[in-house]
């Protein structure tokens, strides 16, 4: 018994050290991927995964403040179309366009955030859904510049010279890591504590002096900034934009990544996005069944692992412990 306690406490101390090591290991493995995977198509999938990891992680940042917005892909769209139009029609440097797209998404979310923060739960979700639709309508009405239904083509890329995808991979990997670290810091300081407090009880949170409206808008603004950045990266990587990338369906896919990975953990959206992007590629013949397969994965995860895929090790550990204990019990009985 005492022995158990000692090992438990020492492993707890090691875990503090273990986590950064694991993260560093994952980053190194991902950075080395192009050495092993030569297929340009798979590199393309990895790059798209990295872009959508930023989007899904920023969506989760908004949800920890207790808001469930259905306009996240629309904020990606604001960032994406802003960057694409500035670069294509005005010839602005794509690197500046990335920042401009992210900033515009952030500013617009700040404007809509205050009226939206008067609503909670399903009403908030509904209004954000309408906002997402409104963004699409703006894209259609500005068809001369946005390409309307047929999409915007000929967006300048980040690198004008090379046609290789490898530079994109490393640049986007770098941006992704910086974004994730920035979002992680938001969650793991007093700001994140206040967001979580609001989401659990806005009554109590405001009774201890937390300005509910201000903190909810802050979560939305932070999330939208990174969504806009992800959208702008998407535009400058794919050279073409289509409204279908930013509609309600796209937002629901983002939610899917977050839910499958685990809503309550920072690693959740990262893991969820990676798995739901890469698994379909392994069964490419079955591509038309991807929505069904993903739905089955989602249902399975929600049913068997309420914490998402991130909770899997914990689940296995507790199952193993349970089995060990019952096993021991049987031995004692004999």
């Amino acid at each position, binding site marked *: 018994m005492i022995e158990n306690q000692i090992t438990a406490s020492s492993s707890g101390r090691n875990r503090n050290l273990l986590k950064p090591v694991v993260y560093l290991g994952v980053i190194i493995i991902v950075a080395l991927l192009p050495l092993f995977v030569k297929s340009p198509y798979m590199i393309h999938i990895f790059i798209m995964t990295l872009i959508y990891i930023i989007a899904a992680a920023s969506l989760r940042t908004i949800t920890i403040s207790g808001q469930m917005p259905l306009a996240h892909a629309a904020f990606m769209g604001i960032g994406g179309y802003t960057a694409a139009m500035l670069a294509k029609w005005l010839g602005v440097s794509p690197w500046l366009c990335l920042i401009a797209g992210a900033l515009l998404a952030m500013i617009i979310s700040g404007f809509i955030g205050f009226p939206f923060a008067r609503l909670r739960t399903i009403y908030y979700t509904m209004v954000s859904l309408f906002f997402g639709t409104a963004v699409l309508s703006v894209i259609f009405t500005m068809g001369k510049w946005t390409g309307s239904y047929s999409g915007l083509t000929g967006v300048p890329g980040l690198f004008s010279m090379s046609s290789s995808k490898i530079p994109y991979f490393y640049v986007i990997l770098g941006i992704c890591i910086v974004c994730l670290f920035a979002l992680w810091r938001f969650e793991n*300081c007093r*700001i994140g504590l206040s967001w979580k*407090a609001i989401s659990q009880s806005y009554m109590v949170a405001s009774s201890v002096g937390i300005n509910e409206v201000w903190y909810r808008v802050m979560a939305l603004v932070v999330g939208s900034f990174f969504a806009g950045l992800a959208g702008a990266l998407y535009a400058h990587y794919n050279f073409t934009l289509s409204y279908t990338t930013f509609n309600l369906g796209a937002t629901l896919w983002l939610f899917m990544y977050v839910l499958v990975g685990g809503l309550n953990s920072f690693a959740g959206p990262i893991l969820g996005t990676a798995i739901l992007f890469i698994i379909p590629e392994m069964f490419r013949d079955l591509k038309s069944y991807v929505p069904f397969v993903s739905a089955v994965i989602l249902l399975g995860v929600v049913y068997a692992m309420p914490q998402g895929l991130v909770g899997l090790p914990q689940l296995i550990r507790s199952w193993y412990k349970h089995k060990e204990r019952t096993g021991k019990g049987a031995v004692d009985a004999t």
Partner: protein
Amino acid sequence: MLLEVKGLTKQFGGLTAVNSFDMYVKPLEIVGLIGPNGAGKSTVFNLVTGVYPSTRGTVIFDGKDISHTKPHIAASLGIGRTFQLNPLFADFTVQENVSASFHLHPRSRLWDIYFNTPIYRKNEAYIKEQSLEILKVVGLEKVKDELAKNLPHGYQKMLGVARALATRPKLLMLDEPLGGMNPSEIEFSLNAIRKMRQEGKTILIVEHNMQILDLCDRVVVISFGQKICEGLPKEVRENKDVISAYFGGEHAA
């Protein structure tokens, strides 16, 4: 005068929940606001702390008119409160509940929080130490690492008090601190309130449990949204109007 309520009125549609209600709280006083169920006690609380906007009347706290302020402003001015149904940060541990409530004093700037500056780290260390101190006052230091939702009801009520204390209130407003408690929990809570009294806190208590009277310096009785009596606990207990409000007119005879 720390808190002064004048002519406070609240109408929900056609129902007048509180009708031109007056009361005051002096510094270092413990005031009880009692009355039968549905008398409007909690509504007065919610009007004072800004949860509901009042229909008419003024609330003056510490020299400032707070009739139309939001709850978080009322908290920042120095009103700490608990709730009758006692909502919690259910998925936080007990200690996290208290440390999340240290939002006002000390207050770190967003810049300092995000970039983890020495000021922020110093503040967080202070908060950690102070939240343990507060948990000792309310007797929860043994369960500080439990999730709040797993605590027994009496402990959850005391956690609400701990949270209110973390805002460093000038006035502590307790909404039914004894509600739904068993006798041993009641004894425990009364002791904790006595302890806070010795520390020189100003407290306004809403309760319909008459046991709370022994602790109060002064008692205000409300029934059907109106003040029917005010005075020392002993006087109130013998007042005919109060007895008939609690037990019905027949009983008083």
